Each structure stands twice: as C-alpha cells, then as structure tokens.
C-alpha cells in the first residue's frame, strides 16, 4: 500500500496534547511530564546487573518482533532459545528490556527442565520506537543476547 504522509515531520508532544488531548496519549500508560525515558546506558546497566559484567554472545537466542507496531500499547513478541533443556544443558532465565521505555524492565522468565522448550510469547508496551533486548542465562553460567528494533507509530486519532 502506498503511504501518503500528510505531515512528515515528527509529532512533538505539545502538538499531540494540543490536537488530541492529554487523555489520549496518557491512556497509553505513557507519562508526558514524567521521568526521563530510559536510554541505552541505563539499560546496559540493568543488563550488567544480570550478567555480572560478563559478556553475552550472540546466537542461540531469537527475538521475534513485528517491524512496525501501529499502537505501542500491545506489541506481541516472542523469545526463543535453542537448548535441549536437559539437566546438563538448559536455559535458566530469559530477561527482556525495552531501551526507550520510562523503565527498561519488561519481564523475566524462569525456566526449568520441565519446560521442554525455552520459548515464551507475550504482549508488551512500548513508549516509542526503540530496541528490545533479551538476554538468556544458561545453566553453564554463560549468557546469550539478542536485540531487535521495533518502530512504534503512536496514533492519537479516532477517539
């Protein structure tokens, strides 16, 4: 479908408020006058807390996310880690962060050898276009990481 953007420039929050009212944007669970949004630095700190500063390799972990989320209130995501989930070799935990949210923490999932598969799907809230980062803690003490950018167009029209 051919996109025709009537106003190509970024919508700033004053205009959002003026045109559609604070209530509309507020209903998304986003604070306009609230704390500063998280950034790559504070998210990296949260990740370091989990890994204890250890490096997290790429591979084995897949983040399945939509390229574009038209509404940031309900974005379906899926995290999957390639693992036999045996006593000897399994995923212990999977963490998810949203770099650009007021608070980067999204969720932590705890697996056991009774999980069978280290795969979880859920729906998350995103305040704006940003990176989603997922880190898996393996039973051997190693970490793997995946990152995915999700574009979020926050609407405002239509009641």
């Amino acid at each position, binding site marked *: 479908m051919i996109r025709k953007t009537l106003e190509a420039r970024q919508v700033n929050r004053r205009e959002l408020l003026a045109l559609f009212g604070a209530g509309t944007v507020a209903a998304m669970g986003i604070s306009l006058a609230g704390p500063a949004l998280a950034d790559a630095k504070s998210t990296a700190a949260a990740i370091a807390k989990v890994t204890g500063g250890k490096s997290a390799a790429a591979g084995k972990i897949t983040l399945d996310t939509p390229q574009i989320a038209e509404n940031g209130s309900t974005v379906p995501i899926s995290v999957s880690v390639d693992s036999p989930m045996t006593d000897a070799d399994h995923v212990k935990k999977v963490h998810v962060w949203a770099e650009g949210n007021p608070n980067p923490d999204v969720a932590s999932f705890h697996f056991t050898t009774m999980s069978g598969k280290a795969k979880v799907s859920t729906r998350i809230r995103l305040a704006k276009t940003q990176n989603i980062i997922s880190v898996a803690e393996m039973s051997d003490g190693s970490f793997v990481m995946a990152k995915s950018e999700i574009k979020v167009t926050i609407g405002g029209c239509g*009641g």
Partner: protein
Amino acid sequence: MKKAYLGVLTLGAVAMIAATFVSNAFADSDFGKYAVGDIRSGYTYMTKESKAIQDDDFENPAMLWLEDGEQVWGKVDGKAGKSCASCHGSASDSMKGVAATYPKYDKKLKKLKNIEQQINICRTERMGAKPFKYESKQMLGTTIYVRNQSRDMPMNVSIDDEAAPFFAKGKAFFNGRRGALDMACKHCHEDNAGNYARANLLTQGQTNGFPTYRFKWQKPGSTHRRFRGCNKNIRAQPLKYGSDEYVNLELYVAWRGRGLPVETPAVRN
C-alpha cells in the same frame, strides 16, 4: 497550534490525490471476505500481528468480555425472576442475524434502536431489572456475546420504509461539518481512507466489528464511544451515549458496511 490544525485541514485539499492511492491499494491485494467491492473492513488495514490476535478466539482479549456476556445471558436478574435465556433460549439460535440487521426501527419508540438499547428494553420492561450502563463490563459483554452470534454473516440493515427518515439523518450527520476543525466524518473515512493523518492510518470507519477491542483503549468499546472520541478529536461536542443522533449514524454507517462480515469482537488500533 494553528499550524497543526492547518495540517489536518489540508486533508480535504489532498482528497483528489488520495483517491488514486486508495484505488491502487485495492488493485494490489485480495482481502477475501473482508471486502465487498470498494467496501473494506478495518481488518484490512491492520498489521498481520494485529490480525492474528483477532483471528484467534483464545488470544483475542475481547473474548474475556464475551465470557462475561455468556454468564449474563444465563443469569436470573430482576423482579420477574428471568434471565435472557428464559425468553431467548440458546443465544446461538435466537440471536443469529441480530447484529447483521441492527439498528432497526422500533414501532413503540417510533425511532431506531440499537442492540444496547434493546438489551435495556428487555431488562427494564421484561425482566424488571436495572439497565446496564454503556461501556460497563455487563453491557460490553452482553453486546459482544449477542453480536458474536452473527459472526461472518453479512451486514444487512434495512434503510427502507420507517427506517428511511432516520437513515437520512444519519447520512446527514456523517456528511455534515462540525467542531472547531469544521470537518465531517467523510473527510477522514471516505475522502482519505487509506491515507495517513499524522501517524494514524485512516480506515473507512466501518462498524461491523463492534464492540471492538482497541489497543488504544486496552479494552472493548462501543460505537458510541468511538463516535464520541472522533467528535472530541475534531473539537466537536461529543453527544451522549445512546443519543438519537448516534443511533441514526449507526444505521448509516452499518449501511456503508453492507456485505461486510460481522466480526464482533474485532481487534483494532
């Protein structure tokens, strides 16, 4: 601020160019049951992830409200000691076709009535029970449950005979300018369906999936909630839930969506 308003007002000016983009979009895709000629369900404008949520009856959050409606259906309520089931039996039998044909003319009221109003007529006059409030859990649940019984049936409201003058009023409302932005429903939903207004992809504004679970609301909502929101967005006075104007508009919009399948409960942005 004025600049922002002007930006939206230019929608009308862009209408001519917009038309060609809309028709190109039709040529490209096959929408299956979700389109009838030029008439397109809001479903066809959604991302594939959002469509997947509507398509799965377990995963669709509005189904939680449908469960509520199913409970209401069988629950005795009011002085007459009746439930919906007492008169209507199994909803899958008795309510089939209701969503496809409402709103309709009521001989006693001498005007149109929608499903929410019929539910309350039954409750107050036949059950001796309290009416449900618009947007309440019970009203949304019951409306979703009733309308869902007609799922996949083509929308087929009557605009003839006694309904005709109300249809005309609904049509006038849809095409009439209102509010500080001096816009009519048609400016977005007819002239610019398929185009973007800021970050919103404009649809045709069909109602075949209502009550709809909107990500924006994070719960289901009625057509009147939607109408009120749209009116507020163009800085027009929102009318009351259950107002005659909105019920008339419901008939006109339902007619605009004739042939589209009932999708209740739909999932939209």
